[in-house]
């Protein structure tokens, strides 16, 4: 367990070091959210209708952009091969990487959500549900994306290819997350969606590190 947090810390350092990925993530979110009013015009009621969807799409895109690199450098330079020869299993290594990915990518979005609300004009009374969906949903995005990310290392290709494999798997999360907000706004209540989202998180937490580890091992073959 101590090793686990050391790895999280090292990944965190690696990510922050020189390059400040978290800051990048934050700026990316703000920019991505600004893009919606820029590209769809500025009618406020139209904006507030797509607000939840927009924030969730930003979350999804930032996952697509960053997950591809979550395992790649460790895979390609042999670090994973080496790390697995410690007392940590590959599964826990991957879980640690997912955690540090979420800390630098998902968490900023959660923290940022009130500001994003303002930018995109989502009524503040719905902020709680946005927050909740993000808090439950973004870890699932990371976890679900881990396996395609590992596979893309195995193929040695990335970018659009990874995105293509990842997107369909992540879309259900997007639908549930954005749907919850929309349902809440339309008065139907988004609790149902939230339940479904919360069901996905523990399942993916159990399954994802296992499958991603399988994928990495496949790459070693």
């Amino acid at each position, binding site marked *: 367990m101590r*090793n686990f947090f*050391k*790895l999280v810390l*090292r990944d965190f*350092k*690696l990510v922050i*070091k*020189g*390059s400040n990925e978290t800051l990048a993530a934050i700026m990316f979110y703000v920019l991505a959210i600004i893009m919606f009013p820029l590209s769809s015009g500025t009618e406020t009621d139209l904006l507030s209708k797509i607000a939840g969807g927009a924030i969730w799409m930003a979350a999804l895109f930032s996952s697509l952009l960053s997950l591809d690199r979550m395992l790649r*450098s460790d895979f*390609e*330079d*042999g*670090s994973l*091969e*080496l*790390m*697995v*020869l*410690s*007392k*940590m*299993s590959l599964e826990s290594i991957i879980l640690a990487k997912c955690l540090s990915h979420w800390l630098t990518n998902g968490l900023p979005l959660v923290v940022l959500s009130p500001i994003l609300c303002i930018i995109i004009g989502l009524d503040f009374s719905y902020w709680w549900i946005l927050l909740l969906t993000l808090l439950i949903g973004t870890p699932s995005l990371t976890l679900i994306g881990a396996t395609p990310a590992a596979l893309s290392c195995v193929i040695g290709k990335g970018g659009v290819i990874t995105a293509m494999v990842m997107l369909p798997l992540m879309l259900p999360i997007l639908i549930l997350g954005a749907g919850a907000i929309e349902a809440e706004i339309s008065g139907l209540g988004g609790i149902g969606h939230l339940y479904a989202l919360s069901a996905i998180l523990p399942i993916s937490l159990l399954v994802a590190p296992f499958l991603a580890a399988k994928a990495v*091992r496949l790459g*070693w*073959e």
Partner: protein
Amino acid sequence: MANKPLVEAKSIFFEKGGRRIFSSLTMVLNEHDIVIVKGKNGSGKTSFLKCLAGYYSIKKGDILWNGEKIFPVQEPEKIMLAWLGHHNAIKPSLTVRENLKFYADLWSTSQSDFYSSINYLSFSNYLEFPVSWLSAGEKRRLCLIRLMLNPAKVWFLDEPTTFLDVENKKIFEDVISKHVSNGGAVVCATHEELKVKNYKTLNLD
């Protein structure tokens, strides 16, 4: 129990992508042993090491670690193994210290071992350099230091002397001699002549 060899390969057979790489290969590795794996390019040295460690799975034969059929890669809690492959596995954007510290923490190396290994390869001046500044040979020396931090008894080295100059090659020979004299064991695939005592050769041609 004590008589069981650390690693034993019993007539193993390995194929990749439908091509036979080697067949009925046998090796016994005891404490104090150095096995040098020789062979032409493409004869399967890297593959052999990877099979022993468990990265690759063999088609026939048995590989026993301390008499048991487990692999370091699959059950790392049970068996410790030090690995140095073609890739350096160091992060260019971290400093030398950060790179080493991470692995030292992972393997719970003591503080004094940490600094003595660094001094052994006279690397203390480089500690705060980012690795991206180092030359190819200096990176490889860093890998040697990391190897010394590893508490594992068995070392698997795949062409460890690439990019090293004559002097560092000698240091490397000292390092492995010291390791085996302390009860360790080394399997090393290389094309060079290593000046170490009492090694066994495994020829894959």
